[in-house]
């Protein structure tokens, strides 16, 4: 398989995630866009891990790091949703344009 297919797939997912993070209003939707970006990073790690494995890496570094990113992503969603619930309880809204208490 040519290495460009998974790499372009990952780049596309990352850019879509960037668009979502910058343009969405609802904090939960921003979290979903961050999830898409994390998934694209894991695809990149696995692809480069395959290249490294062909060049003599026996530790499966790419896949193990992708596994770590997976677990850190799960923890991030838990903490992120707790923050969103806290925001909703204190401001009665999850619109992140209105969460400007620390602005200026």
């Amino acid at each position, binding site marked *: 398989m040519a290495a460009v297919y998974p790499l372009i797939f990952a780049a596309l997912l990352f850019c879509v995630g960037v668009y979502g993070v910058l343009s969405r209003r609802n904090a939960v939707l921003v979290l979903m866009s961050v999830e898409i970006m994390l998934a694209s990073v894991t695809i990149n790690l*696995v692809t480069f891990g395959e290249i490294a494995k062909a060049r003599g890496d026996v530790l499966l570094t790419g896949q193990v790091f992708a596994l770590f990113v997976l677990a850190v992503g799960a923890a991030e*969603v838990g903490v992120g949703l707790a923050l969103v619930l806290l925001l*909703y309880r204190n401001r009665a809204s999850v619109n992140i344009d209105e969460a400007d208490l620390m602005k200026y």
Partner: protein
Amino acid sequence: MNGITLPDVFMLLVAVLGGATAILVVVSRNVVHAALYLVVTLLSVAGAFLMLGAEFLAWSQVLVYVGAVVVLILFGLMLTRAPIGPMAQHNEQGVLALGVSLALFGFLCVVIFQAFGDVRLILVPVTTAAIGEVLYVQWAFPFMSLGFLLTVALIGAIVMARREEGEGPEPPAETDADAGSRLRPHRPDLTTAEPGVFAEREQQVRS
């Protein structure tokens, strides 16, 4: 060497499916639909892992993300009383954000094609047993600290999300859309709209 092989075709299919549903996630006006499109995106990422020969990673992606994270996100939508119907979800930076992401995508495409345009992957499937052997021997200490990190994150999430007495204002009262069938009908004499009822009434008025 430059021909398109069967793994290329499957990878392209997975990439098209995942990219299309990812775009639907960020443009969908209905938040629940966005969460359900996210399921397909994450499943196609798992498919890409399978095509790259990482079977353990693919199934943990399905279990952790599609199984747990999406359910957590749906709970988050429900607990914050997200509007179920379609509504405007984008802020006024949409055009700028589109420009930034398109520019980033173009830049990444140029870099990837210049640096890895002719690299071909030699796909050897990595079995779960093989990844387990390196994970529990060479990667044992990072793996255990990952477990510690998960514990700390979960305890922190519980401490943050716990409700304390008299904290914050009350959430807004139910809107009409929430109240549903408990609303009184606007015309007390006509509780259900049956076909032909207006024509009948008009005839009564005329006679």
